[in-house]
């Protein structure tokens, strides 16, 4: 059976949904193992066992987080060799994609990013050119490296759990030699709202909110949604850059995307046009966003959003 190695960088106190999805996909492809970096908490170890992980690999070095990407790829390459894995799965974050990129060169392995589904034979499905094509692709090399977008499968624990053994993988001494150092790190405060990349519903605001994200936040909270923004809104400093949706921000495919005060430039559309349902609220009937909206309202977001929020609250009693 194929050995599938899932890379989990800093699993934290509890595994993220994206990690659980990777483990679920790994089991559908073969025998799952995990290479992690950072601390392993008991809760996480228990979840990994429940998801049928056979072996846990950890790095011999504790300082991988002090460098950008390179040393993590060296560690992962050593782990793949120790595990004799033929498939490597990582999440689709910027850093995970870059780790996959370098791992691919080290192993002579094909890398496929932005994967949304994997067939049992390893064929990967992804959409390209801003969602205008759905493609199937595969690595033609002995090892395949796939970075998988969140919300690709429903996480499911294994029928029978395991008691994984932990193996320490020697990180090559040269791993950090030509690496850029991370000399300072400031953590971002958690918003308490769903993660933008994983959220079922996203409410996004643009230049039209004119500095006041209040109505966007209230509607998002009434819907249990994450908050997104256009670049105009993030550039203006009304909201953090991590909320930016689009070509140079995040790509989201939620069940519902509500766009408020956003014109719908091509760079914004490329990050959200694969959403299942798009609702747009904009004062200007000529805005391009209406060309892709399933439900469009020509109106003032400061009227429409609060009214919708009140109505949702009312209907929910």
């Amino acid at each position: 059976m194929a050995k599938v190695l899932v890379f989990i960088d800093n699993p934290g106190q509890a595994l993220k949904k994206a990690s659980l999805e990777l483990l679920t996909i790994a089991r559908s492809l073969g025998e799952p193992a995990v290479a992690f970096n950072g601390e392993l908490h008991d809760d996480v170890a228990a979840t990994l066992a429940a998801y049928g992980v056979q072996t846990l690999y950890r790095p011999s070095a504790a300082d991988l987080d002090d460098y950008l990407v390179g040393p993590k790829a060296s560690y992962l390459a050593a782990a793949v060799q120790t595990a004799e894995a033929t498939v490597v799965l990582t999440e689709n974050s910027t850093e995970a994609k870059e780790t996959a990129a370098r791992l691919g060169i080290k192993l002579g392995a094909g890398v496929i990013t932005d994967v949304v589904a994997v067939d049992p034979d390893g064929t990967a499905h992804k959409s390209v050119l801003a969602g205008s094509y759905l493609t199937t692709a595969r690595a033609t090399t002995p090892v395949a490296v796939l970075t998988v977008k969140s919300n690709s499968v429903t996480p499911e624990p294994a029928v029978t759990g395991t008691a994984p053994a932990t193996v320490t993988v020697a990180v090559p001494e040269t791993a950090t030699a030509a690496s850029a150092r991370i000399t300072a790190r400031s953590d971002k405060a958690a918003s308490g709202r769903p993660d933008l990349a994983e959220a079922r519903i996203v409410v996004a605001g643009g230049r039209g909110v004119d500095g006041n994200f209040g109505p966007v936040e209230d509607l998002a909270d009434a819907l249990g949604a994450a908050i997104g923004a256009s670049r105009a809104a993030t550039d203006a400093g009304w909201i953090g850059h991590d909320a930016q949706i689009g070509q140079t921000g995040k790509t989201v495919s939620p069940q519902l995307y509500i766009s408020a005060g956003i014109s719908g430039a091509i760079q914004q559309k490329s990050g959200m046009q694969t959403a299942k349902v798009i609702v747009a609220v904009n004062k200007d009937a000529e805005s391009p966003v209406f060309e892709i909206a399933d439900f469009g309202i020509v109106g003032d977001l400061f009227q429409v959003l609060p009214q919708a929020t009140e109505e949702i609250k009312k209907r929910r009693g």
Partner: protein
Amino acid sequence: MEETLKIIVLVKHVPDAQFDRHLTGEGNTTDRSESILSELDEYALEAALQLIEARGGEAAGNKVIALSMGPAGAVNAVKKSLQIGASEGVHLSDDALAGSDAAATSLALAAAIRHLGADIPADLILTGMASTDGETSLVPAQLAERLDLPQVTFAASLELDGAKLTARRDGDLHADTIEATLPALVSVTDQINDPRYPNFKGIMAAKKKTITTLTLADIGVDPAHVGRSGSWTAVDSAEARPARTAGTIITDEGDAGIKLVDFLAAQKLL
């Protein structure tokens, strides 16, 4: 390190996203007929120009070389870079390169950079954060790996003090300060600067600048290791997604918020 800076900026010629973009042929490769300089690479070029200008520009011996790999038309991305202000251009072009994936692209670009490095050891390789067609962001990290250079990617700011480079990288969970020593590979985001446009003077000056064309033979790359057959991934099928069409558009008459909730309820989204 010497005082002067030699920067190679990687610029890609990509289909213009303002038009419909297509995949064609047996390998489902990108149709490049309506192509432009990838707008995300303009930020890398601007960053390079600002760095050399702060050191007295070309007059002081600094240099920015724009390098593009792609079919004949890709020379236009190089020309545009020269108009914007690059000192000279290099176009890596060979029929055998068609259909290269990130691994094959990074192999060829790394060889081209090493080839250029023989006369102008580059202090800095600058790239965009992603190509607007491939959108993988794999190439910069793979180049750093192949060239064994420190990787400073997704830089939202960049400072250079002697040979010490400091960048800010804005992640989801944290923002990092990153340091490296030249030579290094840096990719920049669209947060880093406001790229300039070519002006009349630049367009005229560009006519006198050199563009060198390189083939695989020039850079010592075996054609079997690049292109569709030398790639490590293959695109087996591509299906155009039907374009999104407009749905119901209403004008607010005082009750649009309620109609919005009706719509969500009908779609079972509440």
